[in-house]
């Protein structure tokens, strides 16, 4: 396995994805006394190229580590970030790689990657139930953290009308913080 620099990794993504690579950014910071670098690469891709991007990460290292999928409700869009780490096992060489996909609210679908990275199952199930993003082709469609009797169509991480606002308890003497209308 050849260890590439962050710049070379971004270049390789440009070569593989072409126009589907929306944005890329390299973040570096110095740590402690010896000022070794803590490095993160942020990459934004279009949904069509998302699976190709994950496959490319697997080409960089055979078994990349997927830490978690984080998701944010940004009004008319939902943004997913797949947090990968690359080149573990090598002193000071590891990089964090955030793979960002932005989805329109009226089309919240993302293909599964469990066939490429089997360990992604839990976090895909969590994203599905908490954010209401449909993971297409997920081998196990059940809920992960939410109980079975939790109402359908309510997604705890949303800030729009499908969020959990109506389920919140308003303590005596407090104002209702949200108004779902």
């Amino acid at each position, binding site marked *: 396995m050849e260890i590439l620099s962050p710049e070379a990794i971004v270049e390789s993504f440009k070569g593989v994805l072409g126009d589907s690579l929306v944005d890329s950014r390299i*973040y570096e*910071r*110095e*740590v*402690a*006394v*010896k000022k*070794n670098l*803590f*490095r*993160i690469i942020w990459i934004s891709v279009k949904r069509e190229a998302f699976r190709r991007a994950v496959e490319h990460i697997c080409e960089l290292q*055979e*078994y990349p*580590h*997927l*830490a*978690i999928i*984080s*998701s*944010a409700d940004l009004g008319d869009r939902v943004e997913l*970030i797949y*947090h990968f*780490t690359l*080149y*573990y*096992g*090598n*002193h*000071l*060489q*590891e*990089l*964090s790689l*955030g793979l960002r996909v932005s989805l329109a609210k009226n089309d919240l679908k993302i293909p599964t990657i469990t066939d490429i*990275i*089997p*360990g*992604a*199952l*839990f*976090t895909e199930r969590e994203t599905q139930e908490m954010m209401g993003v449909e993971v297409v082709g997920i081998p196990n469609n059940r*809920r*992960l*953290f*939410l*109980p079975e009797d939790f109402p359908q169509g309510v997604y*705890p*991480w949303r800030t729009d009308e499908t969020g*959990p606002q109506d389920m919140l308890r308003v303590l005596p003497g407090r104002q209702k*913080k949200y108004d779902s209308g």
Partner: protein
Amino acid sequence: MTVDETKTRYTIPVGPIHPALKEPIRLDLSVDGEEIVDVDVVVGQVHRGIEWLGMNRNNPIQNIYLAERVCGICNICHPFAYVMAVEQAMGITPPERAEYIRVIIAEMERIHSHLLWAGVAAHEIGFDSVFYLVWRVREEIMDLIEYVTGNRITKAMFQIGGVRRDITEEQFPRIRQSLDYYKSIFEQLRAVFLDDRTIRMRTRNVGILSTEDALKLLAVGPTGRASGVLKDVRQDQPYGAYADLDIKAITPDMLTGPVVGDVYDRIIVRLLEVKQSIEIIELCLEEMPSGPLLVEQKAAKLLNMLTKAEGEGIGRAEAPRGEVVHYVRLEAGRETLSNWKIRAPTYVNLMAIPTILKGGQIADVPIAFASIDPCMSCTNRAIVVDSKTKNTSLLSYRELHELSVEKTKRLEAELDS
């Protein structure tokens, strides 16, 4: 009629409450006789919506204390990862001395957590004298933590942009005294866990996770390293003072030769990591730079900076159980975080549980499940359902534990005869 057709397959839901371990989980075991053929993991019994609170109720400084309470045992690594993510998002760098103090506290946590686990593991196989011994030995580090931070459990040492308390020169002799104590008894602990034939019998070739499975299922921490995955954030992408120290990920082959990936290997890794932690603390004490502890002393001013800041950051810390990841996003003008995602190590290690348990025996479930050091657990009540007659019987935690103890006794008797 072949033998297979006469076998009855049972489904045993184990959990969700287990008095021996810390948090609830349910395991649905499909068993064929004594052998486990399939496992389903059901989580979510203690989902407290901490991330939601951090995004809607608390401000970023209050979140440090929320992060500290994600887990009672890992109450350093969560605020550690969280403050690193926030510092990145707002673009400040903590003072060098603070980085060293953070690492010293984090390593103390690792020592106490691994010893706690070793005691629990001994208890799970019915070796209670070792359980008492290890937990007595663990009191020394708990006393030291109390001496340094003022608290045994939630230490509240972390602040965005530094630490809240100093470790002074006058405290060094007391810290070294505890470390010397652990060095003096290390050989005894090693002999108890690695040379004892009962422990070896119950843990060798039990709960095997191969290197390839560990890689595919994203196993982290001692669970991954015991399967030969060289993955340790302190080595790979060091944070804090770890970036100054040359840390190597510990794998069982350093002591025994080939990696098996069983429970015994997980004991080896944790044992060696206790030794490594002692060395790291000693190094940090020697090389601790002088200087301030905080970027900004006044909390109100810091809060103001946080409200104005815009950005995102990732904090990664190697907890005793594996890698903790915090992702944080700050939005200018917003008092709370706009996004907070926590990944605890058990989250990914649970994916490996079906692989670890499959092919094993019911009596091995307590020790094999405990071997990943889950931060949530099971086995209070198990309902045995006979799939042919639909009869249901209850198997309590006590009975399951007794099954495990019986197996130890049986194996010992076989060995003696």
